[in-house]
């Protein structure tokens, strides 16, 4: 995407919503950057080539949250809308409560508003209700163990607590997030995986047969040889439906990656474990620290900090689209270098 950077902050940044991958990701990144920079944006051709074009409910939940924390003026925030204009005021720190249906995800809404609140003038407390373990969004475990520890290295202090799990499709989960902001973000480097510092397999279960988790553990152990001692079952109340989520954690010095697999009707517990194991193996084989999603999430705080770098096995189309959107808002240029042993390094040169 060739985005135009306007010289005056009063003219909105124009973002092409049909470009690249993931209309939803483009929107969330744009909202987050608009909240941080105070620059308005106009997004056109929103999901133009999709079967159901225009904004969907999950996008509107993110827009609404962004409007609420910044008193933004917003035009086109309707289902099916192909164009959105967003003009924020200063972000207000404070206590917020967002109820999000299963059509959206608590973690995605948090990603939208977090950078703005992490750079606000005071602390915030956020309660998010809705899905916490949704197959199409990062689950709470990823937020708590992978994303927030890295994000905190940029300067702010953010803690997330799972009050209640919300599985798809029933939702009804709850997350509490405490944010202590920082004045400006520091440059962070994530270049090596460091020494191993632990392995874990967690099964979140609600209303599924007890032996399902055991069978999944058995299968994971058979293939990863991490031992049964690292396995843990976390049981959740069943009144809001069933849930079965298997999480594999690979902790290294300074960074933990989380890999998730979701139980589905008709899918054997062993197959659920296999899906998690494949992701873990692929990550370990690459030897590089940032997983696919981490690479995606690292870009925005790195660009805001004006420096830093990370290494990953490869950039997904999502990540590349994200880079384009960020470069449309900020006068930074990402430097992408192919590494000799495979993988890439993405860097924001200092003084850029």
């Amino acid at each position: 995407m060739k985005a135009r950077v306007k010289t005056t902050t009063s003219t909105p940044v124009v973002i092409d919503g049909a470009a690249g991958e993931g209309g939803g990701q483009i929107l969330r990144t744009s909202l987050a950057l608009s909240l941080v920079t105070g620059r308005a944006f106009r997004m056109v051709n929103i999901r133009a080539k999709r079967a159901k074009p225009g904004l969907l409910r999950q996008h509107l939940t993110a827009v609404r949250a962004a409007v609420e924390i910044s008193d933004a003026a917003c035009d086109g925030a309707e289902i099916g809308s192909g164009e959105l204009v967003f003009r924020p005021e200063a972000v207000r720190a404070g206590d917020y409560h967002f109820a999000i249906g299963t059509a959206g995800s608590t973690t995605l809404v948090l990603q939208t508003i977090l950078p703005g609140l992490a750079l606000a003038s005071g602390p915030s407390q956020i309660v998010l209700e809705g899905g916490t373990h949704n197959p199409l969004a990062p689950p709470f475990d990823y937020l708590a163990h992978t994303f927030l520890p890295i994000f905190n290295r940029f300067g702010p202090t953010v803690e997330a607590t799972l009050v209640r799990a919300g599985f798809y499709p029933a939702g009804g989960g709850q997350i509490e997030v405490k944010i202590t902001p920082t004045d400006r973000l520091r440059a962070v480097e994530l270049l090596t995986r460091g020494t191993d510092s632990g392995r874990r397999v967690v099964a979140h279960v609600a209303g599924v047969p007890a032996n399902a988790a055991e069978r999944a553990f058995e299968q994971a152990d058979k293939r990863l040889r991490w031992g049964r001692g690292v396995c843990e079952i976390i049981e959740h109340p069943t009144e809001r439906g069933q849930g079965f989520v298997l999480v594999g954690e690979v902790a290294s010095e300074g960074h933990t990656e989380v890999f998730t697999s979701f139980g589905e009707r008709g899918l054997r517990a062993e197959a659920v474990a296999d899906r998690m194991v494949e992701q873990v193996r692929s990550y370990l084989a690459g030897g590089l620290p940032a997983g696919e999603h981490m690479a995606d999430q690292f870009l925005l705080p790195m660009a805001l900090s004006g420096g830093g770098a990370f290494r990953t096995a490869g950039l997904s189309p999502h990540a590349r689209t994200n880079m384009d959107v960020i470069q449309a808002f900020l006068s930074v240029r990402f430097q992408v270098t192919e590494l000799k042993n495979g993988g890439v390094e993405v860097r924001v040169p200092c003084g850029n």
Partner: protein
Amino acid sequence: MSSKKLVVLGLLGTQLDTGKHAHRWKSWRPTVSLCQHDDLLVGRLELLHDRRYTGLAETITTDITGVSPETEVRRHVVEFGDPWDFEEVYGALADFARGYSFDMENEEYLVHITTGTHVAQICLFLLTESRHLPGRLIQTSPPRERQPRHLAEAGQYSIIDLDLSRYDRIAARFAQEQKEALTFLKNGIATRNAAFNRMIEEIEHVAVASREPMLFMGPTGAGKSSLARKVFELKRGRHQLAGQFVEVNCATLRGDTAASTLFGHVRGAFTGAQRDRPGLLRSADSGLLFLDEIGELGADEQAMLLRALEEKRFLPVGADQEAKSDFQLIAGTNSDLSGAVAKGEFREDLLARINLWTFVLPGLAQRTEDIAPNLDHELENAARLLGRRVGMAKDVRAAFLDFARSGEAKWSANFRDLNAAVTRMTTLARGGRITHEVLSGELGRLRTGWKTAPGTVVGENGDENALLMSALDAEGAAALDLFDRAQLACVIRVCRDSKSLSEAGRRLFAVTRGKRKTANDADRLRKYLTRFGLTWPCANHSPP
């Protein structure tokens, strides 16, 4: 989508919406699914349920709050008693609709028809169709078998607008059907007269939408009878009539037998009534009765007909039990029925009854732009009857049309005149072409006919008559069918123009004689004349 708040009205599904404990999320529940779609934001759900299902309604409300916090759920207790009783369910739902304050300016409504008994679904449909529920229908359906569950838990939905004109393909289909109906009523002739085309459109509309009587007014030969038959065929094609087309000219119903012909009689009702006779009204039961020249109907018959129209029953002659017949009536007239009413010759109440849809069929002289398409139609018809095509050179055709559209052409018997003219010209056409010679002869015949017999009917063309009368006696001429009349007149004309039987034969059989092994034209002509009791001298003999 508009920015109006979306409000769904629906019944709690006592079967489909049920489910207990965690397992309830395993099955697709239509009411919950309404609020799970990523591209459908239900602002409010009006959930109607029986008091006995309050617990279920509460569960559904909780679950919807979880999946869709944007949705407000309002519960309404509606008592059906028997949810399969149409009257009861309709009444309860209609009461709900009446009591509900619809805010059309700020909200738009969807009526969910997937839940509830079939009776309830039908009632919701009817209430929506009649705009008692001013919205569109929404139908939900479970996820397809092979869809990944985490992508399609909510299944599908479709919104149905009962305003059919909003659907391009349906509207196009209606337009096509109507166009076909119009073409059909016009006998496939692409008529150009705007007033006539407008009238046909009205007739089509009335024919399809109404069972009331129609009255066709117009001069003789304007096509009343043909149009009545076309209306019948159109309605039968649309399954609106199951019976037959029955046609009678009231001018032919005279004296004692008139009532019996129309209404039937029972055996022994009068001298000569040896058998029961059903009568034309009963023959037309569930069909269409065309009464032409209705002004000629006698006073008694008028009274009986009125009763038959109003009560669908009448008393056959001599019967003491009423007969029933439910028919559609089309009446035809060439006379001023209002004048007849003023003179006391026609019943005012009967006129009022048949005068609801009155159409005045213009004569051919008032539709000069339609002569050309009708000429083509008649030529095609003649070709079908003769078994060979008859052509008309461009200049001949132009000359005929010039004459036909001029003030000189009276067309006093309208389409009958045109039909007769084309029949004569095609019969006389040698080598399959209507020549200038044939045309000028025909124009002469038409002129003479209109001069000598103004307003004559049914091929009683003066010229033709004179020819026939000169060869046959009056009784013999009167016994001829129109078909034979036209043909025989033409044959006699050729005979008069020929010196010998052989020459006349050669001319008359010019086309087919070449195909025969032996050219026995004279013999063929002689045999033809003999059928009418004519000999060569008789046919050849010129009138004094």
